């Protein structure tokens, strides 16, 4: 498995990196977060102009048809630069689900997303469950030829800024929580109440109340069975994105720590001369590179529609969580006090990492999922037929 980038992929990575280096200095990020805007509108428009908002969508949906490797490159750069703009929320989650849905309304919204004009959010979490797969107490009841939604959604990332919300709700009439179906809710629909706040990682989110929101019949994008299938198609790409973002964060934290420990003199010599510090840096590097291997493997399998991809995705999310915490915690430790300050960037990697860990299933959940999906498969050769991940490279 050698991820040799194509010329186009290399250009993409370079142009993203150049843009963020020139326009997304950490100081600017701080100024943005000190204000009241949920994210930088000018940055978002620049993303649109660079074609980044169209990157993962199929050409038939107006997109650029970028694959998993392209997503990896983008997310890694966004993680390295601690970008708070809601790419994951609007493009990957909301955009991914709309793309899986198809149809005219979805096409119109996707056009808006790709041009930068429209923001979306995926409202799935509730007090009782934090995963898109979780059973939900929010109810969708038939009413006047359409639907009536009632319930509360928790920690809806980008919910405050969203022009539309994709909301999970159960159609079941009996009992407590039920299997989620998916509904398209305009942000300004009567009965939609949003209580916005910032999150620890510099993003914005909201608590969402749906107080008898009346929707047309076509607002139901997926019934419960179809939603499970649609989410399964979106999930592994979303996990790749989060893992690659975490990888970028590890890179940023590690590079800063190497530089700092080489320059910082204590007890008459640079910190990086002390063996205990050197070995810790090596352990950070080991964790970072093992994690990178799984992220690359996931992209590789996704781009080949390999049935192993969900298992690799579970492995990657579990491993990235442990590795990302180890690297970002030790980055703070080896810096000392400076990394505990808001004005220095390194501590912010830890906060984003901790939030990523909580998104779309934590380490324990993904380890359990990995066990189910592996079912003894990990004891076999990597690929029993076809020669493994090299056949077509």
């Amino acid at each position, binding site marked *: 498995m*050698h991820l040799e980038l194509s010329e186009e992929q290399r250009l993409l990575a370079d142009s993203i990196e150049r843009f963020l280096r020139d326009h997304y200095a950490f100081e600017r990020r701080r100024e943005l977060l000190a204000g009241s805007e949920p994210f930088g509108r000018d940055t978002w428009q620049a993303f649109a102009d660079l074609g980044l908002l169209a990157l993962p969508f199929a050409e038939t949906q107006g997109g650029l048809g970028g694959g998993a490797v392209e997503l990896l490159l983008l997310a890694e750069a966004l993680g390295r630069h601690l970008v708070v703009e809601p790419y994951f929320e609007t493009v990957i989650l909301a955009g991914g689900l709309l793309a899986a849905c198809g149809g005219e309304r979805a096409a119109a919204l996707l056009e808006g997303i790709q041009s930068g004009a429209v923001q979306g959010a995926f409202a799935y979490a509730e007090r009782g469950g934090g995963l898109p797969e979780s059973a939900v107490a929010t109810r969708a009841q038939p009413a006047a030829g359409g639907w009536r939604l009632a319930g509360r959604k928790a920690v809806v990332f980008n919910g405050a800024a969203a022009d539309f919300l994709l909301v999970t709700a159960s159609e079941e009439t009996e009992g407590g929580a039920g299997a989620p179906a998916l509904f398209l809710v305009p942000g300004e629909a009567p009965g939609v109440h949003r209580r916005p706040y910032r999150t620890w990682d510099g993003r914005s989110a909201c608590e969402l109340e749906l107080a008898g929101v009346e929707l047309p019949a076509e607002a139901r994008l997926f019934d419960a069975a179809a939603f499970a299938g649609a989410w399964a198609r979106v999930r592994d790409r979303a996990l790749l994105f989060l893992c690659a973002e975490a990888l970028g964060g590890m890179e940023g934290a590690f590079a800063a720590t190497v530089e700092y420990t080489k320059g910082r003199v204590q007890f008459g010599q640079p910190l990086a001369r002390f063996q205990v510090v050197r070995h810790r840096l090596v352990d950070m590097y*080991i964790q970072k590179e*093992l994690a990178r291997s799984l992220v690359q493997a996931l992209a590789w399998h996704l781009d080949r529609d390999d049935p192993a991809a969900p298992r690799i995705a579970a492995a990657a999310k579990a491993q990235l969580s442990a590795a990302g915490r180890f690297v970002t915690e030790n980055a703070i430790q080896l810096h000392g006090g400076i990394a505990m300050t808001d004005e220095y960037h390194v501590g912010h990697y830890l906060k984003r990492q901790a939030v990523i860990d909580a998104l779309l299933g934590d380490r324990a959940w993904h380890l359990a999922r*990995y066990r189910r999906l592996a079912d003894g498969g990990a004891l076999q050769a990597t690929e029993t037929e076809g020669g493994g991940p090299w*056949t077509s490279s």
Partner: protein
Amino acid sequence: MDYGAFRREVRAFLDEALTPRLKRAGQLQTSVFADFEATMEWHRILYRKGWVAPDWPPEYGGTGWDLIQRHIFQEECKLADAPSLLPMGLQMLGPLLIRYGTEAQKAHYLPRILSGEDVWCQGYSEPGAGSDLASLKTRAVRDGDHYVVDGSKIWTSMAHHANRIFCLVRTANTEKPQAGISFLLVDMATPGITVRPIVGLDGRVEQCEVFFDGVRVPVENRVGAENQGWEVAKYLLAFERGGHHFAADHKKQLRRIARILAAEADPEGRLRGEDPDFCARLAAAEVEALALEYTELRVKGGLAAGASPGALSSLIKVAGCEIGQRLDALALEAAGLWCAPFQPEALSPDWTGTPAAPDHALTAMACYVDNRASTIYGGAAEVQRDIMARHLLGL
């Protein structure tokens, strides 16, 4: 390249060539070394097939396989329970002679390594020179067209079976200790050599001490120039790091664990495989092993495309050994009380007695104990981390 077809070809050969006794030796292998007789029998079978030295250039008897084919071959051998071959001749000395040996040395020694006629051991460490290898004191003094060697080597694996030893010896006292070392090839039958076997924690002999008392070695047996032995030795160590296939080892370990889990109960009377806490820790180790496997493939894929692995080759050695040790600890835990019976003889493929422990638990403790060595030999994990730190920090 159709790797699937290649994998099937390897599998078909292994199916046919591995006798039950050879497979038994592979199943009972708990360290770097399998049963010696079985190892050499397998060596000769692979030699006749032309597959004994896949890592050597084809003109010297290699197979001409690319890196991925070699990876597949090693993986299939492990999963088929083939005993491991001795690495000292095939993995260490052979490539070193190809790089640094004279034409006469290559012509004489390489075919004998391939055929299994020569069994080599490695005389590097000394009682006073372990991780600090350059401080070695075994002396070689020039006397006409011979060196006279005095001193001792330790942790010399398989010296009690070997007929030859390659040694680092001190030929000059220089300010920088590395600058006074030479590399010699020595016939173990030379007068003045005595071998003292060392009984290991597993009750068996793999390591030896080798004493040199006025041992006369022809000057033509020196590899590289006099006092240039360190450069030669470093090449070998680099090869030792890169020449291992941890993914295959880890899969074999995972399969051993699966067998125990399917048979043994935990303290609550559940099958171990139904204990959620144990399974979570096993899954975590399995995921790490998967990450390491993809790292191996990254490095091999990169090497094939001409990239330099840099710090990644040390990373694979360090992480590969440490993950392996965690897997051994999990197997031991799963085996429960069956870890306790100490029957070294039961680990011989020819033993016909009745073991105290069930078959699936026989190797658990020996694997666990033996594999503690993996973070010590070939450059201790701490030394590997020093090497990586220099690489990463540039200071």
